[in-house]
């Protein structure tokens, strides 16, 4: 008895030990409370710019503001002039294509396609004054627009179609006296409106982030940590951390959740195991475009319909454009579940002049990665599909000139003539246009990184670990527990279970029947002997 007692005691103790071992917490990550403390310290500017006499002098040209800025902050414009914000291109190594200078300047997409020929309009979002694609413009440091990013007054605005010049309503002195670290308002003024309207491009960057609730974004929440873009997108010498795979290819300079949260941020080790193959965003961004819709499909081939010779727009019941004569037809989505793919941080791009097969969907960018790739994880992406113009003879995508500031200049938005727009646009990028065009289906991949949801809304286990219609239903080449099974094993298993049950029912039933009969026989024979006896007694 004693021995048994000790055995039990030992058993209990070892189970206890193992359980505590299983529940050990990882010490690697900074606890959330620490991060909260760190980011609740909002920096106050160390000087009051409104007191500087240099900034009280009446500014008549924005370049004078820049001159005033660099009279103290000397050397800063040179830093900006080395940045992608200024150059709109950078050297990237692209698999199979080599080292190429790519960026907004020369990459095509399936939204407004490309800037060539439309610079006057597109460069409203360039960090410079009066964009011109010339060496003289790019080497003059006074063209750097400090205010676009450093305005803290909330009153700075660039003018429409003026190549980046400020709006005439802006009081340059007032803005210059109220400068500081970039705010969400500064960054968002351009980055929330990419593609020509709110949330058109990204799906996870939009004006709701000017003043978001925690449900929309836990980091930027006005009622939460109220973090600014530059809290994560930090900068050294005006070189910002972070980039987008629509215009970049290499696995570098990325903003990573792990920088703050560590690579094992969960107290639950089963969840931490996931981080090897699943990006944080995959579970923590259950849907994008939470507040306003984002474009999912853009059909340029529908553009150009006119009413009484005039362009028009059609809106759906929510007031969203679904048709514009200048741009074609759109499909929008709100609260969209992302698509998922394996991504190792490198990408490839369609570069101008690359040949296409018009019978197939053209990938404007390709995100590389696979299950077998040790660098790849599952990432959420927004897929933007389009139908856009291509050269039907030379078989490459066409850069059309869209913006038009005078009739007959070929800009599609003025003339509604694809041939002319193609001619003018292709001239700009030095490629021949055959005179024949068509529309080809294209696809573009946008990793979704913002709009992290509160943890209660995180994607739950069974949204992926499920037999049917899981979020990862389309990712193949690996075994996902709960989703995958082997059909023959399933058949075998269910078969033996069924056989066992049927066998038991038959066997057991037979036993019961036999036993009943036997007991009846016994009682009958007993009854007979009794009645025989009683008869005999009579």
């Amino acid at each position, binding site marked *: 008895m004693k021995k048994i007692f000790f055995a039990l005691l030992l058993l209990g103790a070892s189970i206890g030990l193992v359980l505590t071992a299983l529940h050990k917490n990882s010490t690697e990550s900074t606890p959330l409370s620490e991060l909260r403390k760190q980011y609740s310290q909002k920096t106050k500017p160390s000087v009051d710019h409104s007191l500087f006499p240099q900034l009280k002098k009446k500014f008549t040209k924005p370049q004078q503001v820049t001159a005033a800025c660099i009279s103290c902050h000397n050397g800063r414009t040179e830093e900006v002039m080395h940045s992608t914000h200024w150059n709109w291109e950078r050297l990237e190594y692209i698999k199979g294509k080599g080292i190429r200078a790519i960026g907004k300047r020369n990459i095509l997409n399936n939204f407004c396609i490309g800037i060539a020929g439309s610079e006057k309009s597109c460069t409203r979002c360039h960090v410079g004054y009066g964009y011109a694609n010339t060496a003289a413009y790019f080497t003059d440091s006074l063209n750097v627009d400090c205010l676009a990013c450093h305005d803290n007054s909330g009153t700075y605005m660039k003018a429409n179609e003026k190549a980046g010049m400020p709006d005439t309503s802006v009081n340059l002195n007032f803005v210059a006296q109220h400068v500081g670290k970039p705010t969400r308002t500064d960054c968002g003024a351009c980055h929330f409106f990419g593609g020509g309207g709110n949330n058109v491009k990204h799906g996870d960057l939009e004006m709701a982030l000017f003043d978001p609730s925690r449900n929309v974004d836990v980091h930027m929440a006005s009622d939460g940590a109220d973090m600014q873009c530059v809290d994560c997108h930090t900068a050294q010498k005006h070189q910002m951390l972070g980039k987008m795979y629509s215009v970049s290819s290499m696995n570098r300079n990325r903003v990573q959740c792990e920088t703050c949260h560590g690579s094992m941020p969960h107290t639950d080790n089963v969840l931490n195991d996931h981080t090897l193959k699943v990006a944080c965003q995959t579970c923590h961004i259950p849907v994008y475009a939470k507040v306003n819709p984002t474009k999912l499909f853009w059909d340029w081939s529908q553009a150009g319909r006119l009413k009484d010779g005039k362009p028009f727009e059609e809106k759906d019941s929510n007031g969203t454009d679904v048709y514009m004569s200048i741009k074609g037809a759109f499909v929008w989505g709100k609260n969209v579940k992302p698509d998922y793919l394996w991504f190792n941080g490198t990408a490839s791009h369609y570069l101008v002049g690359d040949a296409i097969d018009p019978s197939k969907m053209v990938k404007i960018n390709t995100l590389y990665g696979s*299950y077998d790739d040790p660098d790849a994880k599952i990432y959420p992406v927004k897929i933007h599909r389009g139908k856009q113009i291509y050269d039907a003879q030379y078989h490459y995508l066409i850069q059309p000139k869209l913006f038009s500031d005078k009739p007959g200049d070929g800009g599609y938005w003025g003339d509604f003539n694809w041939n002319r727009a193609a001619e003018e646009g292709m001239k700009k990028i030095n490629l021949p246009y055959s005179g024949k065009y068509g529309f080809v289906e294209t696809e573009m991949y946008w990793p979704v990184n913002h709009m992290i949801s509160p943890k209660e809304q995180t994607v739950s286990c069974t949204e992926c670990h499920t037999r049917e219609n899981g979020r990862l239903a389309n990712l193949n080449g690996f075994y996902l527990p709960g989703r995958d099974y082997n059909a023959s094993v399933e058949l075998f298993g269910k078969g033996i279970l069924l056989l066992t049950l049927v066998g038991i029912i038959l066997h057991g039933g037979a036993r019961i029947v036999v036993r009943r009969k036997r007991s009846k026989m016994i009682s009958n024979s007993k009854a007979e002997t009794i009645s025989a006896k009683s008869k005999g007694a009579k």
Partner: protein
Amino acid sequence: MKKEYVYRAFERFWHWTQAALIIFLGVSGFEIHGSLHFFGYENAVHYHNIAAISFLILIAFAIFWHLTTGEWRQYIPTWKNLRAQAEYYIFGIFRNAPHPTKKTVLSKLNPLQKIVYAGLKVLVIPVMVITGLLYMFYRYPQKYEVLSLNIKNLEAIAILHTVGAFLLVAFFIMHLYLITTGQTVTSNLKAMITGYEELEGEPHEKKKYPEVNEPVLSK
């Protein structure tokens, strides 16, 4: 007929704990597999892990007990009477025929039990343990600091584990039924609870277990 002490305390403890753990592992495992919904997926994973570790500990103790007591010999499969035992279940049991093998303290398992239990012990359970541990400690191909097994694909592991799980569940169901085929419908169950069972024949000698250092149960 004599009342005999057939199942000692540890044996009964081991049996019932194992039964509970296997049921639990089966339910949580098949929830992970996607076949049923009971605990909730996340709980199922945690419970399965905890039960699996407990099961491993129990197995370690059981192996120790079987070796030191020599009880492991009870499970050596034999051809003798195997056919007779099968025929008993197919025909004899309906004719109220006697059990073809006598249950004694030194030979508590009939030939069919021996072969099935031995199969479980040397094949199914080890497969479950090995694939289960691999399932637990494998990692996808990776190169960061987590020390673990780099196994390309989980599929083979998972499939073997699932096959074993199906076999165990089938065994479990069959086992429940066969419990009722003892001397009486409940005599086997009572024996595994109390340790005592009415056995035919002469009572066994008091000393059932060899002392340490003594050669075990020479046949």
